[in-house]
């Protein structure tokens, strides 16, 4: 697509949106026309600067903090498979903890804007850490051998080869981190009781039943995230160009999630499971939280298994889990399918893909709570809306990871199918996708915890079923035993999904000779 045609297509899409909004064609007018959003924005113009500034401040601080920690952790995990294995539980927990369970505790423990910064940082941590580990692991083995042949140790390999190989992957992951940081800040503003920030503006605006205002807020958030996204997209593309291998290394590389030495496997797996609990217990006592709110692991054990509350709690949890789990699996598959489709579209019709990017970005920064009325009007309150919400929270990190993987396929590998006149799907199916397999699996590992979270969000916002609803209602009842239990279960399920993906990945790698 030429820039002119892309512009035309963009204008056409905007026009269609305008018509749909003006004439109330979508969801009985719950989708506002762009002009209505602009008009509302103009009326509200005095409100925005302070809110935008507050959100930018928190999001930026969280972005810097989260990414710094993520990259440092990624370095550690890349150098030490044991540390990586040990921290896996904590990592997934940080990514999988539902914000609706986390924010009340953050708000209680931390002063001022700290909860916003922490939530923004949490949104960055996992994708960027994963990308760092993957990028470092994916270094060309020939280059690694070269440095080692000159006596270079892990440090020299890291300094001269690995970090530079990781650069495009890490920069690409910052494309994910940017909207996540903005959304994280907004979510904390939304619920945290502050007076500034787009999130605070949003919670006040919800009761107005004015979609134009909500879209204005969402688009302002998108604009903030979009700037950072665009910056890192350009930087990542540049870095990719000069990182892409010219020829193909004969050895396949691993995807970063290396297994630990066999003798250590069992203790590390145990440690990985126990570490989050230890951290949890430590934080609860460290912040001196009242026992009403902050349940210790033992208190949750009591609530779930030993105490008088156990039978009822178990029954409710199991019922909820049975509602949530199948949808989470379906959502994971659907989210990855969308991610893959979008990434492939980027290869085949880059113009169209670029046209879809703003839309994808909106889906990442628009707080779902603002979209709920539109979604339930369009899709009802059943499986459709659940899958839509789940896909929307799952696909983006996976999409960016896959697209980056495809962009790094060595030139020589693609020459081969092209020299035989391969149609695009064969070029991709026979060469590009297999070559990008580590990135594909990294995408799946990113998707797994998100899928569960997505279903829980849908249950919380729209369907009123499953774990999400249980959590939501437990909050209403001040039933902290149940809140912690649901959080615990959702993390355990995420860990299980993650391990499942890892298992498939290992089997595939072994079959393809990289294991």
């Amino acid at each position, binding site marked *: 697509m030429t820039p002119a045609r892309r512009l035309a297509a963009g204008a056409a899409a905007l026009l269609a949106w305008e018509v749909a909004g003006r004439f109330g064609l979508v969801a009985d007018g719950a989708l506002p026309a762009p002009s209505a959003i602009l008009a509302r924005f103009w009326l509200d113009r005095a409100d925005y600067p302070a809110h935008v500034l507050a959100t930018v401040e928190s999001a930026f601080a969280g972005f810097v903090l989260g990414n710094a920690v993520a990259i440092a952790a990624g370095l550690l995990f890349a150098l030490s498979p044991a540390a990586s294995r040990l921290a896996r539980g904590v990592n997934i927990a940080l990514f999988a903890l539902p914000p609706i369970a986390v924010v009340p505790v953050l708000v209680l423990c931390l002063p001022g804007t700290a909860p916003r910064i922490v939530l923004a940082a949490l949104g960055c941590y996992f994708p960027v850490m994963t990308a760092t580990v993957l990028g470092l692991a994916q270094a060309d083995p020939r280059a690694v051998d070269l440095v080692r042949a000159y006596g270079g140790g892990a440090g020299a390999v890291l300094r001269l080869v690995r970090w530079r190989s990781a650069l495009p992957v890490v920069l690409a992951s910052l494309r994910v981190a940017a909207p996540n940081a903005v959304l994280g800040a907004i979510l904390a503003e*939304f619920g945290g009781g*502050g007076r500034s920030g787009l999130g605070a503006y949003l*919670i006040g605006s919800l*009761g107005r*039943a004015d979609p134009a205002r909500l879209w204005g807020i969402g688009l302002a958030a998108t604009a903030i995230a979009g700037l950072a996204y665009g910056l890192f997209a350009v930087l990542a593309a540049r870095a990719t160009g000069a990182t892409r291998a010219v020829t193909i290394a004969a050895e396949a590389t691993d995807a970063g999630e290396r297994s630990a030495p066999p003798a250590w496997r069992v203790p590390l797996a145990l440690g990985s499971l126990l570490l989050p609990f230890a951290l949890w217990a430590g934080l609860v006592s460290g912040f001196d939280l009242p026992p009403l*709110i902050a349940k210790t692991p033992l208190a949750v054990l009591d609530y779930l298994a030993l105490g008088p509350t156990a039978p009822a709690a178990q029954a409710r949890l199991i019922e909820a889990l049975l509602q949530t789990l199948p949808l989470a699996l379906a959502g994971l598959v659907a989210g990855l399918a969308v991610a893959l489709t979008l990434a492939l579209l980027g290869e085949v019709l880059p113009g169209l893909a670029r046209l879809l990017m703003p839309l994808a970005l909106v889906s990442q920064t628009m707080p779902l709570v603002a979209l*709920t009325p539109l979604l339930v009007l369009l899709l009802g309150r059943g499986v459709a809306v659940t899958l839509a919400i789940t896909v929307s929270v799952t696909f983006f990190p996976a999409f960016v990871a896959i697209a980056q993987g495809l962009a790094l396929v060595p030139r020589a590998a693609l020459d081969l199918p092209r020299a035989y006149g391969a149609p695009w799907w064969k070029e991709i199916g026979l060469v590009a996708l297999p070559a990008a397999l580590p990135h594909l699996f990294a995408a799946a590992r990113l998707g797994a915890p998100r899928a569960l979270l997505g279903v829980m969000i849908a249950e919380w916002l729209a369907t009123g079923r499953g774990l999400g609803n249980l959590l939501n209602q437990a*909050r209403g009842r*001040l039933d902290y035993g149940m809140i912690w239990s649901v959080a615990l279960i959702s993390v355990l399920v995420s860990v299980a999904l993650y391990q499942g993906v890892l298992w498939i990945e290992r089997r595939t790698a072994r079959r393809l000779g990289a294991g």
Partner: protein
Amino acid sequence: ATPLAFQASWINDAEFAGYYVALDKGWYAEAGLDLTYLPGGPDVIPESAIAAGKADLTLTTPDTTVQAITDQGARFKIIGAQYQKNPLGVVSLAGKPIRTPQDLVGKTLAVPPVNTTSVEAMLALNGIDKAKVAIVPYQYDPTPLIKGEIDASVDFVTNVPYTIKTQGGQEAVSFLLYDVGFTIFNDTVVVTEDVLKTKRKELVAFLGASRRGWVENLKDPAAYPPQFKDSHFKGTGRSIDNEVFYNAAQKPLIETPKGIFSMSEEDIDKTIEALGRVGIKARKDMFDTSLLAELG
């Protein structure tokens, strides 16, 4: 002046207008208090704030507070009630009115998470099987109600009819849960027993100054909200008209001849009884009316 931190139960709106009046008039300072006002929000759980010591006192919904005391062993005391009658009600469109609990059968009702207990109580009190009502989550955006995706929502009747009128162009029909048997207070003023012991004087001072603020505010519900346009209500995303509506609508729910915040024996009994019928075991000793008594 002694510092005192007050955790509000929601974002800045007319629900807290009385406190803003007292703040702006300097009546807390006059009463010897250096009041910190903390706005609330969906993730600020008021009971948590006082339990964690972030605030000295807060406003709560009594059902959750009582449950926290009975089930979790929290050491809370209720020392006053802003709403004599809980403003929570079932709101529907005049075109498809829901006037009684019985009308809810077979309908879809949106309920905010914090109010699930109250709604289930109301249905039980009226002999309605909750399985016959499709209860879906509610996030305080009335759009699904206006568009007819749901039949009714549980919301503050002081607030949402305004939106339905301005955005939906329709009249709202509503009934209070209170009026169908769920006779509880709301925005109960709650403290921990510790604070009650150590800051009794300040709490009394707070109640006094706040009562002054509320009396002043309710004299003319249209008077104060516009004055808060560039202070307490700045940037909330809500409109001053909405706050005026809210302020007027809440007037009858707050005012009582015994003085704002008061909890009469009779009303305490009503609250205990209503909660008791859904298994929430409130007791008289959870309510401490002695501070109000000091106000006279």
